[in-house]
């Protein structure tokens, strides 16, 4: 993955220069770090690439996120971000209790799929009580139910070139002068095939509520909440996400957050 290639000497040089430049120049330069394309930000972001590499080194493929017990579920799952999509197609579908919902699996796959709710619920389901960690700092423990993403992928048979799974969502997260943006997210195939990565349609023994992402959301238990897209309608397998939306692999990533949300 070329994006994360890192020349150590170059990194150290940049890190040193960056540190001294930052300290000498004071507050104006610091606020310049907000600008996504500034040189100083490029330097500090290199440290995040290092963070990703070390996490992959330590976490490897299949270490498991801690699981909790029924006694640890002390409250309903705290909703965040979009909690009631205002999109017409979504509202119509929700009014019909998601009876017409279909999950599309497209992109670099041998066999594109259209899965109804019945199809998804007919798959072997997995239930896990896990902790949801928001990038803001809070945590909440809840019970999630749904098929493993790997089962869906095995059916669709990703092509050899496929490196990432992109989740396209119903909800418009931002409407501003710069346009209207639908939520999307992406993970690599290591996390896509991880045994705790599921497509959840159930929360705390009930159907997934709208505020938590009905009818289907993804759970990626070793990453932060923003990686776990809600209101998913399409799963697209791609070789690179550079051409999708802002090119950083997700709505929040396009707004400056790390692509790998492991810390």
């Amino acid at each position, binding site marked *: 993955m070329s994006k994360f290639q890192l020349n150590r000497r170059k990194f150290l040089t940049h890190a040193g220069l960056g540190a001294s430049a930052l300290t000498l120049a004071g507050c104006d330069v610091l606020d310049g770090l907000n600008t996504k394309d500034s040189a100083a930000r490029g330097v500090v972001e290199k440290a*995040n690439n290092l963070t990703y590499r070390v996490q992959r080194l330590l976490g490897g493929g299949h270490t498991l*996120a801690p699981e909790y017990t029924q006694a640890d579920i002390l409250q309903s799952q705290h909703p965040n971000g979009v909690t009631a999509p205002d999109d017409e197609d979504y509202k119509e579908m929700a009014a019909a209790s998601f009876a017409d919902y279909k999950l599309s699996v497209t992109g670099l796959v041998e066999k594109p799929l259209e899965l109804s709710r019945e199809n998804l619920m007919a798959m072997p389901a997995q239930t896990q009580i896990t902790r949801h960690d928001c990038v803001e700092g809070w945590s*909440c423990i809840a019970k999630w139910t749904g098929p493993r993403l790997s089962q869906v992928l095995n059916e669709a048979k990703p092509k050899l070139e496929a490196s990432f799974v992109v989740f396209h969502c119903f909800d418009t997260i931002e409407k501003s002068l710069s346009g209207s943006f639908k939520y999307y997210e992406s993970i690599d195939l290591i996390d896509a095939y991880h045994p705790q990565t599921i497509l959840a349609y159930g929360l705390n023994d009930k159907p997934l509520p709208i505020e938590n992402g009905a009818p289907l959301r993804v759970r990626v238990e*070793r990453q932060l909440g923003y990686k776990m897209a809600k209101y998913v309608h399409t799963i697209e397998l791609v070789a690179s996400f550079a051409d999708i939306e802002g090119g950083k692999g997700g709505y929040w990533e396009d707004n400056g957050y790390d692509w790998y949300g492991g810390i």
Partner: protein
Amino acid sequence: MSDAATDAKPAQGPLIYRQTRWTRATHWIWAISLFFLMMTGLQIFNAHPKLYFGHQSGFEYENAFLDIGAKQSGNDVVGYTKIFGKEFDTTGYLGVSGPNSLSLNYQAFPAALTIPSNRSLATGRIIHFFFAWILVSTLLVWAIASIVTGHMRRDLVITGADLRNLPQDVKDHARLRFHHTKEYNTLQKLAYASVLFIAFPLMILTGLSMSPNFNASAPWLLDIFGGRQSARTIHFLTMIFLIGFFVIHMLMILAAGPINELRSIITGWYRVDAQTGKDH
């Protein structure tokens, strides 16, 4: 340059080479890193200005230890800080702050204490992790080098003699009578050792314990701290401890002779008392 004006004891000894270039370099790298880590840390804290004990955050039950925010009170918005449920009005400092009543920021820690000064969790995180790497890597190099060269054992590890001298050292500090010797005194050793051997490792480990990815690699560490939210709280409290250390560190430098102390941490050279030695 005369130290006589600031020194309690007029009798001056020679200049000695007290701080190696490695000690001086790591000192300043850590000072800069901690400055950025604290201010970006407060930026990150502002994204969810509450601290809890346990695995999760109570939204439908109460397990908050600290809660900073803003609320309506009559026609005004006031800033509040709750510690263990006890509420304080902190308008102007915490919860609500700003240059004047027309331009207020509704955030826990004021803009003057965060990097960047505007609200940006994404930018705060990126800078925080950048300096976290610098702190961790220099601490690792320093620890290995200090063991190899004997610096750790010779200058920082607290010995029996240090402990026997503790009551006398406390008295000396209380009377602001400072002995300028090549060696650190007992309280100095305790202060530096608590930062290097307790606060820094605790900071790094509680920081790692907030990572869901790291939790999967080392769930036992999460258990040691009593859950992710406890780890976050300990991370914050360790920051408060380091600020306390910084304040005392500055006061001691002023009291013991700022020119001599600063010279030694910049150039390495330190003027000792005429009667140095182990006789006190």
